[in-house]
């Protein structure tokens, strides 16, 4: 199994690799588009600002490689900013055109209640849609989030996971082989590790 983690200078990608290693899964961190194209599983993580992330993806040709692996049917898992960049447009950094693999926009949380803090940081329960294969838990389980922006898919049916922070927001999307989560499975304890394992095993 050739598991590839995309390295595009967006924060600490090694935490995903460490989590996989604890599951006995070897992975390769690469900025090389051709290595990404040859992968059996692609993980697209990300921490950072949308504008610099997109600039890095474009300058390395990783943007095209992501389109290619999604079209080729390779299982792809986006995480956090890696999820957000899949959409058409982000409101971050004054507005950024993103990968446009999924239709929709990325918006900032607008707290109406003083007690609602942004960034949305911490453990929040996630409700998965019926039949979503990355749901591994039998009870409602919190996962670890840290973000100020959230995805708003044009096509509601893409949403396969939901959470709530003042408003209900999209915590996960899926379209065929492409799946993405707003939370960090690599930092979500045993439940997060089970999700990663399920993705790698592809059941």
């Amino acid at each position, binding site marked *: 199994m050739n598991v590839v983690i995309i390295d595009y200078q967006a*924060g*600490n990608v*090694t*935490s995903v690799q*460490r*989590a996989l*290693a*604890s599951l006995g899964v070897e992975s390769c961190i690469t900025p090389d588009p051709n290595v990404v194209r040859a992968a059996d599983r692609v993980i697209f993580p990300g*921490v*950072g*600002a949308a504008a610099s992330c997109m600039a890095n993806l474009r300058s390395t040709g990783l943007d095209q490689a992501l389109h290619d692996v999604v079209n080729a049917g390779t299982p792809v898992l986006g995480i956090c900013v890696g999820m957000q960049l899949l959409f058409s447009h982000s409101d971050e950094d004054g507005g950024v055109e993103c990968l446009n693999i999924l239709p929709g926009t990325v918006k900032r949380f607008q*707290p109406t209640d*003083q*007690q609602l*803090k*942004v*960034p*949305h*940081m*911490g*453990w*929040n*329960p996630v409700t998965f849609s019926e039949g979503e294969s990355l749901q591994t838990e039998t009870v409602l389980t*919190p996962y*670890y*989030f*840290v*973000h*100020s922006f959230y995805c708003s898919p044009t096509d509601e049916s893409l949403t396969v996971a939901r959470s*709530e*922070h003042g408003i209900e927001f999209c915590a996960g999307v899926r379209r065929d082989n492409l799946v993405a989560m707003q939370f*960090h499975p*690599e*930092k*979500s*304890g*045993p439940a*997060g*590790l089970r999700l990663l394992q399920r993705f790698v095993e592809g059941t």
Partner: protein
Amino acid sequence: MLTKRVIVCLDVRAGQVTKGVKFQGNVDLGDPVEYARRYYEQGVDELVFYDITASAEQRSLFIDVVERVAAEIFIPFSVGGGIRDVDTMRTVLLAGAEKVSVNSPAVRNPEIITAGAEAFGAQCIVVGMDAQKVETTKAIPSGYEIVIDGGRTPTGQDALAWAIEAESRGAGEICLNAIDTDGVKQGYELTITRMVSDAVGIPVIASGGGGTPQHLIDAVTTGGADAALIASMVHYGDYTVGSIKADMAQAGVPIR
């Protein structure tokens, strides 16, 4: 709904968890990775590792601890102590920490907050602050003053104003430690915790004074904090993280 976090803080000296004891200096408690694993298994939401040494030699021991924790513990953790510049931040983040915490160096040079947030994102930058109750004056209208250097040096700066400035400079979170209640186990300083929590839009961690589960409940309800930090409560086996969280859940606090 976002759950309230229970965070355990581990002071690390020469690669060992250590605890300051009055008149006796520090007592080493054991391997930080062992402690981290134990709390992880008990369901802790986050960990903080505080490097209480300064020497370069011990610094590398500390980085080794951070790397070992990152290989075994799959929850967020932050690192504080001795972080004075962006290069040091980068070193601990690359070693596997999620966030860095800056305290006195941020008061002396607030620019470090902005520089860190620009380099790594605001969510990586925790501003730690030690607040002490004082007479309300024109310079310190909140009645809480920022003290630095582990509580030894008063700054004349208002704690509430500093929290607001830290947020505007790019901090992603504030860890508010009350000097008066720290180590006394009589409960958190709820007044300043509530003031800061109401005044900023970023998460606030209450620190200093946690001795019973009720103290944590008070911190996240009356105090309005998003998280509560504990140390000796669990280090000596008086409580487990699991038992504390069970009591919090019983009281109606959303927890993981």
